[in-house]
């Protein structure tokens, strides 16, 4: 048992249990259509949590992901929007828009990272304030430029990410896979862990600590932008409000997966399982017509249990 608890697959195993637990009560739960729903539904969370995982591994935290979603959603829509978009109708609108969305994410990440790595500001406060600022900025942008809080009528080429589920899925899976390879197989990956373990030792051992830290936040920003692309396409609207309520789930999913908030410990794969678990749970309860506040409570309890299990894991499996 403790072997299983210690293994990578533990959370996946939990997913299985949840699945088995719900199946008998709600037949719809196991229908392919519903499972497909869960998959599509969890993609933005997956991307966000993956980006967050890298930041957590460096011992930081990025609260600004939701703000990034809103901002890059608005930016993208402003570029390609059919009504007042700068490039409306032009064939290059869609690629340019997506590029600018990713750029937005990268820039915000760069700003966060720079403040944290080079100005030595606490990540929590930096990303807290940038959240406030950039979500405010996105509302302001939409208001000033198109005088409305959200932008509709986006080019169909872009909406494909929403209408063709497999496209969104492909994008998310590829991105996640890349993140996994980066973390598990490349130099930067090892450096991220090292910085999370001990920045001073890392610096003295020739790790470009500042650069690595900034990299993590840029990465998180870009992944938030990817999530923004999915949400914007699914809802066919560029809006500052997208994903506003996701933050807690993002951190929750990473933690449930087993990533440590103290840095140095975590895997993309764990996070994938964490996301799956949260989504299965949410969807199942929803189908059982469980009232909304009960779902919130259960989520909290799950995070608690996951954290407890993690303590248990480190105690009994890694040994004292």
């Amino acid at each position, binding site marked *: 048992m403790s072997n299983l608890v210690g293994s990578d697959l533990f959370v996946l195993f939990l997913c299985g249990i949840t699945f088995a637990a719900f199946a008998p009560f709600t037949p719809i739960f196991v229908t392919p259509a519903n499972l497909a729903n869960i998959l599509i539904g969890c993609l933005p969370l997956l991307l966000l949590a993956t980006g967050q995982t890298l930041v957590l591994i460096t011992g930081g935290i990025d609260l600004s992901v939701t703000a990034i979603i809103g901002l890059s959603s608005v930016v993208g829509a402003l570029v390609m929007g059919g009504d007042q978009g700068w490039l409306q109708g032009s064939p290059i609108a869609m690629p340019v828009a997506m590029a600018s969305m990713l750029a937005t994410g990268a820039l915000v990440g760069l700003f966060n990272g720079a403040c944290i790595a080079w100005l030595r500001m606490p990540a929590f406060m930096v990303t807290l304030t940038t959240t406030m600022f950039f979500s405010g900025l996105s509302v302001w942008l939409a208001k000033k430029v198109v005088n409305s809080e959200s932008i509709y009528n986006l080019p169909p080429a872009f909406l494909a990410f929403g209408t063709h589920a497999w496209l969104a899925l492909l994008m998310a899976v590829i991105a996640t896979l890349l993140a996994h390879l980066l973390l598990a197989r490349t*130099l*930067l*990956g090892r450096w991220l862990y090292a910085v999370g*373990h001990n920045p001073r*030792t890392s*610096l*003295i051992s020739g790790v*470009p600590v500042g650069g690595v830290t900034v990299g993590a936040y840029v990465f998180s920003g870009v992944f938030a932008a990817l999530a923004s692309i999915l949400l914007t396409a699914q809802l066919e609207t560029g809006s500052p409000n997208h994903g506003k309520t996701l933050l807690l789930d993002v951190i929750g999913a990473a933690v449930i997966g087993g990533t440590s908030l103290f840095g140095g*410990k975590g895997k993309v794969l764990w996070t994938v399982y964490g996301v799956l678990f949260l989504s299965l749970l949410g969807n199942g309860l929803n189908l059982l017509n469980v009232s909304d506040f009960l779902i919130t409570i259960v989520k909290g309890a799950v995070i608690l249990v996951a954290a407890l299990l993690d303590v248990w894991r480190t105690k009994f499996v890694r040994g004292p």
Partner: protein
Amino acid sequence: MNSTPTHLERPTTNNEPFIVFDHIEKAFFGVKVLKGVSFGVGVGRIVGLVGENGAGKSTLMNLLGGNLQPDAGELRVNDQHYAPRHSNDARNAGIAFVHQELNLFPNLSIAENLYLTDFPRIRPAGTSGRADARRSGLPWINRRALRAQSVELLRQVGLDLSPDTLVERLPAGERQLVEIAKALGANARALILDEPTTSLSSPECERLFILATQLRDRGIAIIYISHALGDVLRLCNDLVVLRDGEMVGGGPTQDFTHDRLVSLMVGRQLNQLYPERRSPARPEPNETENVPGRKPALQVERVSQPGIVRDISFSLAAGEVLGLSGLMGAGRSELARILFGLDPCASGEIRLNGENLTGAPRRRIQRGLAFLTEDRRQEGLCLEASIADNMALVTLPSNSRSPVRFLDYTRINSAVKRMREAVKLSPKAADTQAVRTLSGGNQQKVVLGKWLLAKPKVLILDEPTRGIDVGAKSEIYRLIYQLADRGAGVLVISSELEELVGLCDRILVMRHGEISGEFRRDSFDREKILAAALHFLKK
């Protein structure tokens, strides 16, 4: 072997023991770490406790401190049976510890550190007397009493500082004294000094020794744990030698010599702590230029940093082991940090094999510079990471394939494997084990191995053997020579003059951020070297 508690009651000790270890046994997971250790610590005696790491010293002290309980045998304090369950029990029994790594809180004032656990409190009128000012009374700090009592304690350890000074403003030596003052404050009758001198400069050590003898004469029983055998022989009245949990020697200090202690500790005649150099000592640096093929590995020219170091110039030849001596705070470590690019350098040039060294540590490492810092735990290791990860850290870039920088794990693992054997890392430890779980010696070997993997052209070692047992020490010396014989230049910083004299081809002495002397192996003279380090004291 006279291992009964009576052996110290011979005429040499005229006082009855205050602390008595009576056939103490302790085992972890069936492995015996203490095998019936028995001795006593007399009132007004300093007992030196020596032994390699893992000999059982710390276990013994943990028993005394109440962090562990013995499996068999009895502890007696003041002829009372004594079975502590918590560090507070030890405090109440009048036993105080001064640990290797200090336990002061830099963000608090000296006074607050001294009385953290039992602040003098405002007490309602009526009750009186200093004793019940503590613990009893309102939960309200009596600032006046606190200040007065603190001043008194500081006076006893010979510090005249305002008790409101924040500890973060004190140099290591003064912090050490504050620790002792704290022990006195808990009016301790027995004092355990665990490696107290590791971070002290020589004058600070002197100050500490004088204080220790004063306390002894005031009737305080002292246990003094240290690897610096010279100090032990000078300071202690009685010695106890542990090896593998057994007491292999004990008695009044005059029965022991340095060599006997060492052989007792390691159990074999370790007649040469410093292995043989295959190649002879290096020639003078000024010759190095014109000796063909012996070009200088590291050249430092007029390096200055306001307030830190002034006008430092020297040259380290390939294959040379150069010692850097001087007092704590003379600027040795600071110089090393500047050379490695950790601290800014206002003016001057640093050349490695002729190329200028600039920029972040990363770029200097690429040029072949390596730096083993004095703070192993904070700057040398990722404690929670595995042995393999720690060892591989520096050489990761060279083991990754561009452009995506994929890592070649087979190469990394084999390299780590080779290095483990090269540094003779304890084979019990698995590659995936966290270095936190290793002994100090093995941890240091991991750090050294990490740097050796990078095949450095110049290696700077800052206090490489601090707090490490004799066996590991000579292991590290051997590795240093190996590296030098392969043609690398080695710069060794150490506070133990003995070590430098035994190890180096040449010794530079620093003082006040300047180089105050240079000695070649054939002209090593301890007095002269010390004089160069202390010179200003005579003025």
